[in-house]
């Protein structure tokens, strides 16, 4: 059965864990901007960690339920309702035929995730359903298009025993992030960090940077105290998730899920994966800081996280 898209909202995309193994031919990973919220959605429903969901940016999405199932909403609070009644994110809900699921505008955070029991059933392309608009890959029609009114998003039929009696599951409070709390992003120094003078590195870690209007799934442009590398450009090389590119104007760009695979700007280092996910819930005007992070500590935290969410393959 399926959800029918009544209003696609601003940008609503099908995302799974991402497309891995094709960066050597220039295909980016895609995947959820806030992986933490995405993984909780699948966990609440007992889905496999990489099951396809909807990523709803800013809001205004409206869906009609065509058969009873269970959904979970995580991530940003976009003022979601079921049949006009307000619901809280980070929780699972039963929905019945004819129900209207709607999202309004952001109250906290930017991106909400809507997971369905058993997952959205979407054809994979290069091993993933993740939508990358720029590359015209993934999504409902395997052409990288965002959701449109009239789209029909299939999910598996649930026997009534799964849905009834329904016990709602909620993420324990201590795991629910506050997307309006001050954000300090851990940075692993690397790439061309040696091309930045000590004074420049100090500037970078002691000043606040503001999220600009120029933010998308490819990257976040920040504004603040300019920092300069002694290099103009570099020989193009592979770009990590979270890499901090510093172009000539000295304003950092944090590269995210839909980043280009190779690039030629100097980079001071990389924001940790867990930090990059938190950044993606921040909108224009948010102030953020950077702090040096030890790679081994970042690795240990990521390993604990992977184990917690049952990530056995891929990243």
């Amino acid at each position, binding site marked *: 059965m399926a959800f029918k898209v009544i209003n696609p909202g601003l940008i609503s995309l099908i995302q799974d864990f991402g497309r*891995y*193994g*094709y*960066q*050597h*031919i*220039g*295909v980016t*990973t895609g995947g959820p901007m806030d992986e933490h919220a995405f993984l909780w959605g699948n966990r609440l429903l007992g889905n496999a960690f990489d099951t396809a969901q909807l990523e709803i940016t800013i809001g205004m999405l409206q869906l009609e339920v065509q058969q009873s199932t269970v959904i979970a909403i995580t991530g940003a609070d976009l003022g979601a309702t079921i049949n006009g009644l307000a619901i809280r994110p980070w929780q699972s809900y039963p929905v019945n035929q004819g129900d209207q699921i709607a999202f309004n505008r952001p109250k906290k955070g930017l991106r909400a995730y809507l997971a369905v029991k058993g997952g959205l059933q979407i054809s994979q*392309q*290069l091993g993933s359903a993740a939508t990358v608009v*720029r*590359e*015209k*890959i993934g999504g409902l029609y*395997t052409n990288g298009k965002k959701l449109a009114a009239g789209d029909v998003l299939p999910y598996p039929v649930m026997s009534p025993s799964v849905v009834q009696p329904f016990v709602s599951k909620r993420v324990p409070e201590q795991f629910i992030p506050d997307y309006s709390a001050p954000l300090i992003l851990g940075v*692993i120094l*690397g*790439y061309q960090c040696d091309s930045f003078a000590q004074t420049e590195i100090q500037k970078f870690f002691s000043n606040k940077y503001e999220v600009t209007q120029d933010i998308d799934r490819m990257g976040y442009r920040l504004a603040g105290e300019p920092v300069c590398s002694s290099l103009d450009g570099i*020989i*193009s*090389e*592979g*770009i*990590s*998730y*979270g*890499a901090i590119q510093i172009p000539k104007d000295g304003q950092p760009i944090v590269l995210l899920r839909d980043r*280009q*695979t*190779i*690039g030629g700007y100097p980079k001071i*280092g*990389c924001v*940790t*994966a867990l930090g990059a996910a938190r950044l993606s819930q921040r909108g224009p005007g948010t102030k953020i800081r950077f702090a040096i992070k030890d*790679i*081994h500590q*970042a*690795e240990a*935290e*990521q*390993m604990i996280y*992977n184990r917690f969410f049952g*990530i*056995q*393959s*891929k*990243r």
Partner: protein
Amino acid sequence: MKIQPLTEDSLIVYVGEKIEREVAQQVSVATQLIRQNLSDKVIDIIPSYHSIHLTYNLCKTNFFEFHALLRQLLANLEQQSVSIESSKIIEIPVYYGPEVALDMPIIEQHTHRSAEEIIDIHCSELYTVYAIGFSPGFAYLGNTDKQIAIPRKITPRTRVPAGSLGIADTQTAIYPSESPGGWQILGRTPLNLVDFQQDSLTPVNMGDLVKFVAIDKQAFLSLGGTL
């Protein structure tokens, strides 16, 4: 060779320091060695001009172990000799006609050469695939003859048609799909250079050699080219 950690699950191997055919060959050899020996631990691999970016699977290895394995595997890379002849040569048909060679007049003016001379020079070279990236299937090829070198456009085009063949400085490349871009366009290929429905995805791979073959309008159209 230098190995540098980047994130909790990625690192970069710098094989050399310059854009050189020899370095590109070493990148190619190292990439093959990694694919053959460490593929169970590697998630993604991005070879480029002088480096190899690797994302590894934290469920199967960690930086300490992976770094040691790589060091061991690539220890004798400089001694590995791979002859250029062993690389695959891919012929790409190109129509250099006025309808598709959008920047030919600028290139003629800049190089003080006629279109015929420019096409001859462009087709006479055997190009190395130095990197694939920027967008799916976009292959960075070098080096073009200095006689036809021209800087990229100051203001990039917002729309370069798919299949367009461009030059910039001493590099040349084909845009596999329509995209913005600042390279100077001198022709168009009818070949589909990235097809997600095909297993091979792209006919051109890192380390391959590419030769451009000039074709006429009729051949271009019959091979499926569009003007």
